[in-house]
Every structure is written in C-alpha cells, then in structure tokens.
C-alpha cells in the first residue's frame, strides 16, 4: 500500500513538473479581498516597508559613504529584473548568494557598512524596494553551470523527509497542493512574491522565514540562519517557478 502511495506521489509530482500551465501562484488561491489588498499599492501594507527601503536606497549608510543610488542611480532602471535572477553565483564569495546576501556584499565592499542581518526591517525594506523594480517580470534563473550542484542539492532537500512528522516539502506542495490542511489551501510553494507581507506575521518576512515556519510545522529543527541549505532550496524553488511573474511585494494570509 505504502509503495502504491509513493508511486502515486511520484507520478503526481512528475506531471506537475511536466506541465507548467498547472502551476498556480499563491495569489490565485487567496480570497478576493486579499487579492485586492495585494493589487492596490494604497492598500498593500508591504508598501510601508518598501517606502522605507526606497529612503534607504537614497540615504548613505554613514556620512561620507556612497548611497546605493550613488552607484546604481535610479533603481527603476538599474534594478529592473535583478530580483528575477537571484540566487546567482557570486565571484566574491565563490558560492551562490541570495539577493539579500548580494546587497550585503555591496554594503561591505562598496559602502564600508555592516551587513544587514536576516529579517532586519531595513533589509526587508531594501530587498522589497529592489524586488519591486522587477514586479510583473518572469522569474529567470541564470543558466550558470556553477549553480547546478547547489540546485541539485536543493532538489534533494525538497524531497527529503524532515522532522518528527517525517514529511518532505514535495509531499505537501507537489502531491497534495490544492487540498486542505485544516482551514487553509495547501499552496504550490512558488517563491514569487518575497519579501512579502503575511497577515499571520502581521508584518514583512523573507522566504527563509517562511521556510523556517514550514520546518517548525513538521517538527524539524530549522537550519541555522543564513545556512547554505536555505540558498540551495531557494535556488531549486526559483527554478521550479521559472517563468512565473514576480509579485513582490505580495500579500499572503
């Protein structure tokens, strides 16, 4: 019986991957009021954070240092599409980096400033502002051969069972996506709106925070903050969502 179920899971997940049209953004499963909240910038509470990020973009981190705008100019032109390409391979770190880590590299090497910690409100704001410039553009993971081993590691993590409940990401988000978990619809887990405003959090959060929540949900110990496993998972998830339009800053229940 167990093997039958597993075989069924495998079939379902392979058809999911083969037919890109079957992919649904979490946006499509939201209630009409929530969708209206995301669509309208005057209602979207994530825009408060993005506005802070915009101010940070133009403000030098310390007197005498360059602001982001000092090198990159107007974000609308220079940052257009940037968020669709991350995580990307960094020549500086010799490993894949998320957009957050890329911003931190810039802060350390160009601005002589301290890196912004994960989930820091300023970091989320800046990240949201940069990603906003790619809103509506399709996710375009780079075809960089150096990324492939990490992406494969992410794919392996995605199908690895974790925690006391011994569940893998794929068991819920591929095999049972669209079904219910308690009162909520299980989404397909496409990372196409981060950083986003989650009503459950009453605030902004990153993809890492969301993934940590899932790991805690299956009663596993989440990886450490900024661990390479998060980047590998993000690489795989972005590849899985390739071509879907970016919604940043999104709203989710």
């Amino acid at each position: 019986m167990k093997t039958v179920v597993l075989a069924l899971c495998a079939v379902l997940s392979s058809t999911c991957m083969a037919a890109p049209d079957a992919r649904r953004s979490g946006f499509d499963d939201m209630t009409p009021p929530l969708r209206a909240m995301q669509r309208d910038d005057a209602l979207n509470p994530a825009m408060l954070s993005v506005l802070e990020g915009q101010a940070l973009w133009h403000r030098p981190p310390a007197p005498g240092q360059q602001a982001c705008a000092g090198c990159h100019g107007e974000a609308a032109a220079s940052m257009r599409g940037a968020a669709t390409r991350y995580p990307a391979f960094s020549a500086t770190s010799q490993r894949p980096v998320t957009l957050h880590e890329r911003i931190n590299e810039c802060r350390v090497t160009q601005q002589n400033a301290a890196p912004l910690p994960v989930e820091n409100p300023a970091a989320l704001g800046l990240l949201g502002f940069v990603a906003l410039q790619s809103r509506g553009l399709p996710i375009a993971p780079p075809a960089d051969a150096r990324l492939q081993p990490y992406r494969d590691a992410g794919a392996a993590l995605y199908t690895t069972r974790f925690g006391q409940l011994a569940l893998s990401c794929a068991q819920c988000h591929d095999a049972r996506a669209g079904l219910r978990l308690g009162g909520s619809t299980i989404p397909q887990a496409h990372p196409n709106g981060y950083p986003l405003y989650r009503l459950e959090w009453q605030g902004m959060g990153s993809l890492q925070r969301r993934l940590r929540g899932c790991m805690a949900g299956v009663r596993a110990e989440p990886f450490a903050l900024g661990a390479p496993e998060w980047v590998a998972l993000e690489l795989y998830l972005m590849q899985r969502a390739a071509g879907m339009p970016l919604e940043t800053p999104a709203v989710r229940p």
Partner: protein
Amino acid sequence: MPTAIVTMPATAKRGEVIAIRTLVAHPMETGYRPGDGGGVLPRDLIRRFQCHYNGELVFAAELYPAVAANPLIAFFTVATESGTLRFSWDGDNGFAHSESVAITVT
C-alpha cells in the same frame, strides 16, 4: 521615523464626495501576547486617528487592541474648498505622526 501612505485625489469639484485611504506603519501590540522571554509584550497601540480639513475636524476614530498591525482607515469627506488635509495618529509611548496633503477644489 514612522511611515504613512495617504491616497486621495489631488483635485476635486466643489461639493464632490472624495474617498481617502490612509495606511500607517505601527505594530499595534495588544498587550496580551506572550513574548520570547515568557513575559507579556507591553501594550503599544495607536489610540486615536484624526483628519482636519483646513483646521476643521472632519473625521476621527478610536483604535483598540483588536485592530490589526499597520491600520488601514478609509473614509469619505466632501470637498468644500482648496486647502490642506492634515492626518494625525496618536498612541502609546508618545507615538505621534502626522501627514499633510494639499487639495485643489474647483
């Protein structure tokens, strides 16, 4: 520096009913939630929102712990004359923020 977003038309005809939407960044901590250390997180709320149209109070609201973080307040007023609408939020721990938006009435 708290952030607020006010959305309203920049121009209106005299006597027209205009829609105003305001969004302000605030945690609206209820005072009932446990924190990481096991204690209760201290209450931190916006208590009152006011809108003055050329100095005259046209809309006000009292806010309570049941209001979610980053409160959105939407309301209507009648465009009577050109001038400024001043929006102010006041709350616990000396929280005070105000925004002014000009309107031209023809």
